[in-house]
């Protein structure tokens, strides 16, 4: 089975107030990170099946200068094996997509660009602490088409009072006007240790009520499906089946993936491991020829089952009926979930409905045994 490769670029020009990913606004560290990454690549040479997806994320990969970007991709293709039709995605910040950068990306063989648009509303963009305005967004998206990128994804954030449902649907329509192949709509989450998390705790940002969040979610799904998009995962929509993110689906299907760079996560066989969340520690480890791994776990069959259950019920592919067959009360649970309209059973698969997606964190819990 073909594996996925993820590269974590832990740099941003500035930190967004809602973001909990590992990234730092220190371009001076890029050279040592890059040296480290090149060494880490060598540690895994020949250990994974050929990759048929490569995803460069972060952070902000387009924050890297063209030389570093080119050097990085060259290094990967020199030392690791890729399938001929590899899905090759790079996350991009609209600000960075100049003609020159876009051309470079194109020249590197990147065939999918995921743009961190977040919103098409000037006020919302500034609330979210984004560096770009609507003008940069429009310009970047036009440019990508101009440079013949055939697979463009747009990332959006929604589900907060400062935007409102009307504003959000407006943003969605703006996104749709570009006919993107892929749209990710993430409901705003107040993560610990982020600026927004602290503001929420202090009561300075008031999150939506659960019923409002639900309404936003349902409206999103409805709206995009009306436009022909496939709601194939909680937060992800594809223009057609071929436009689903090949790479991201690996996360949800227990397909092996290798994550390189500080804080990146990997999965292979029954093992998960994750890298240290510090460039310094990361570089120290690879310098000594050691994998910069902070922790790892080998999943038991029970744990694999739990993951399959919960990840599967987050996607429109659902789970096989067999996944829950061994549970004594599964028939009863299943029929009550069907009656409540939360799942459907189609061709031996349990598939969550739109309402089911909305409570996807609870669906696996229903199958757990009480006494």
């Amino acid at each position, binding site marked *: 089975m073909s594996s996925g490769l993820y590269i974590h670029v832990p740099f941003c020009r500035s930190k967004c107030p809602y973001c909990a990913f590992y990234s730092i606004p220190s371009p001076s560290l890029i050279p040592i990170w890059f040296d480290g990454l090149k060494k880490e690549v060598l540690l895994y040479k020949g250990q994974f099946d050929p990759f048929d997806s490569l995803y460069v994320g972060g952070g902000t990969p387009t924050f890297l200068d063209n030389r570093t970007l080119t050097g990085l991709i060259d290094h990967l293709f020199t030392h690791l094996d890729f399938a001929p039709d590899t899905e090759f995605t790079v996350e991009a910040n609209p600000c960075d997509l100049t003609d020159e950068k876009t051309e470079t990306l194109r020249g590197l063989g990147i065939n999918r660009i995921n743009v961190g648009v977040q919103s098409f509303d000037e006020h919302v963009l500034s609330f979210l602490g984004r560096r770009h305005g609507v003008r940069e967004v429009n310009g970047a998206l036009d440019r990508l088409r101009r440079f013949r990128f055939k697979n463009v994804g747009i990332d959006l954030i929604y589900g907060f009072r400062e935007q409102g449902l009307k504003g959000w649907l407006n943003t969605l329509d703006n996104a749709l006007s570009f006919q993107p192949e892929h749209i990710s709509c993430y409901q705003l989450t107040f993560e610990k240790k982020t600026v927004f998390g602290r503001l929420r705790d202090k009561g300075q940002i008031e999150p939506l009520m659960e019923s409002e969040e639900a309404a936003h979610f349902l409206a999103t799904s409805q709206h995009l499906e009306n436009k022909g998009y496939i709601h194939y995962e909680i937060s992800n929509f594809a223009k057609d089946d071929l436009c689903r993110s090949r790479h991201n689906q690996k996360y949800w299907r227990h397909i092996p993936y290798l994550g390189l760079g500080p804080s990146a996560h990997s999965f292979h066989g029954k093992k998960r491991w994750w890298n240290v969340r510090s460039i310094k520690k990361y570089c120290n480890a690879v310098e000594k020829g050691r994998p910069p791994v902070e922790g790892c776990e080998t999943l038991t069959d029970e744990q694999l089952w739990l993951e399959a259950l919960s990840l599967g019920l987050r996607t429109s592919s659902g789970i096989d009926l067999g996944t829950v067959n061994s549970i004594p009360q599964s028939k009863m649970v299943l029929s009550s979930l069907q009656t409540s309209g939360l799942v459907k059973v189609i061709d031996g698969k349990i598939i969550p409905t739109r309402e089911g997606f*909305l409570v996807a964190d609870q669906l696996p819990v229903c199958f757990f045994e*009480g006494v």
Partner: protein
Amino acid sequence: MKSEKQVQNPESSMQNIRNFSIIAHIDHGKSTLADRLIQVTGLVEDRDFRDQILDNMEIERERGITIKSQAITLPYVNRKGQAFVLNLIDTPGHVDFSYEVSRALASCEGVLLLVDAVQGVEAQTLANLYAAMEHDLEIIPVINKIDLPSADIDRVKEQIEVDLGLDSDLAILCSAKEGTGIEDVLEAITNQVPPPSSVAEGPLEALIFDAHYDPFRGTIVSCRLFSGSVRSGDIIRLMYNGATYKVEEVGVFRLEREPKNRLSAGEVGYIISGIKTVSDTRIGDTITLDHDPAPAPLPGFKEVKPVVFASVYPVASDDYRSLVEALDKYKLNDAALIFQKDSSAALGLGFRCGFLGLLHLEIVQERLEREFDQSIIMTSPTVQYRFTLTNGEEVTVDNPAYYPDPVTIEQAFEPYIRASILIPERYMGAVMELCLERRGVNSQFNYPTPGRIEILFDLPLAEVVYDFYDNLKTVTQGYGSFDYDLIDYRESDLIKLDILMNGEKVDALAQIVHREGARPRALLACKRLKEEIPRHLFKIAIQGAIGGTIIARSTITPFRKDVTAKCYGGDITRKRKLLEKQKKGKKRMKMVGSVSIPQSAFVAVLKSDIG
């Protein structure tokens, strides 16, 4: 540490024995002082020392409380060079164990009354003082925590003088934490506590003040000898039931047991005599010699009867066998717990248990879970009711599930207590209100010291078993102390309150209540269950009903949205860990129909808003 040579024959006579206890309001430093006395007398090397050294049980150390009485014998040479044997008897500090405390105090001649230099005299200080005075003990006031910057020694001395009526000049100043004044405390014990006035000759009279179970030696009885002596090989007789045993070993408690040739009048120590379980002994019973028995047992013996009842079920019915074993083992060391088989439609096979009070109940619950690794559900506690039926039959019911058919009930009776509540005068209004709300009658007031008031009330036991004490502490800001005696059964208008979950009766949640209190109780139960039961994917209707009439209801709204937005690399492990927790949690829930009810809900139904 004093070397053995300096100690001049410590066993020479009763004149050199001092039996004492430390009494104090909670957190005034009782355990720390005990620790320090043990350290200063050199019984334990500093490197072997740990805090709260007398509290062996995990639960005692964790909660900072003492549950079982414990004795320790300390060698001490005073400033004049006289050698003493000091027996410290550590006592529990809760009203549930007041009988055990009374037996421990009966084994002493004096007490250290410990008062916090910052907090001053508090309710428990007074209650303890009265208990000590009842046993005619020498009382040595000790002011602790004098090292604290906010210590107000003058004010505390005045309280000792005025509130306690003791001579504040005799109060010893110490800081158990810093170790200052500890020798003064020891000197005062030797100088002020009288030696035991026991009779060396004469038949054996030993008061049992505690018993605990040792897996290798059987029951270890802690006792105080008032007359005669006992040695290994003697045949002893327990005066309560006449059972006889051959003594295998006697000795005193150091940090470990220290065997001796014999125990004599005035001494405190242990007897091992092949008594299998702790339940074969009774605290407060008198041990005598079979061939030369005492004419009468020592006074004050009471058989401790349970006053609070609740059912215990294994969370998973497969674990019933294991629960049986755990209870049998538990019982080896806790004679006060009684239990018998029980079953419930909702919860399956289990046991009906009787407890001394709610703290006792909580302790049993916690120890079964922690030390015996049981997952249990405990139902809400009740008392024992009596019913006279129309056919003349009399029935006793301590489980709402066995409430008789209402049409057959001629008369219903419930147990009453006489409660004594000691408070500073300013809380009188709040406490009166609390007692009246709990159906208190026949109030009476005493004024033991200026500014203090003792309120006496007849109260239905059912009204105090659950959270009366917590509420009292809340309304009196911790200054209220409470004690009670069971007095009698009185006629009462009792009915059964059923709880329904999505239309299905849950027998384990039923309660027997007074008619007037039925609606508030039902509302409370619905409210509590709403708080305790997590949301589900469907709506849950909770109803309180009497007969077929619904008198209260609440609704648990279903989840509208519960979904994690992002689930990529690292999110997956985090998500799975949460699921593992949820899976484990659900295993500890009881399914009633398709509703999962957490264990806590079964006890929480009674918990009122204050406290």
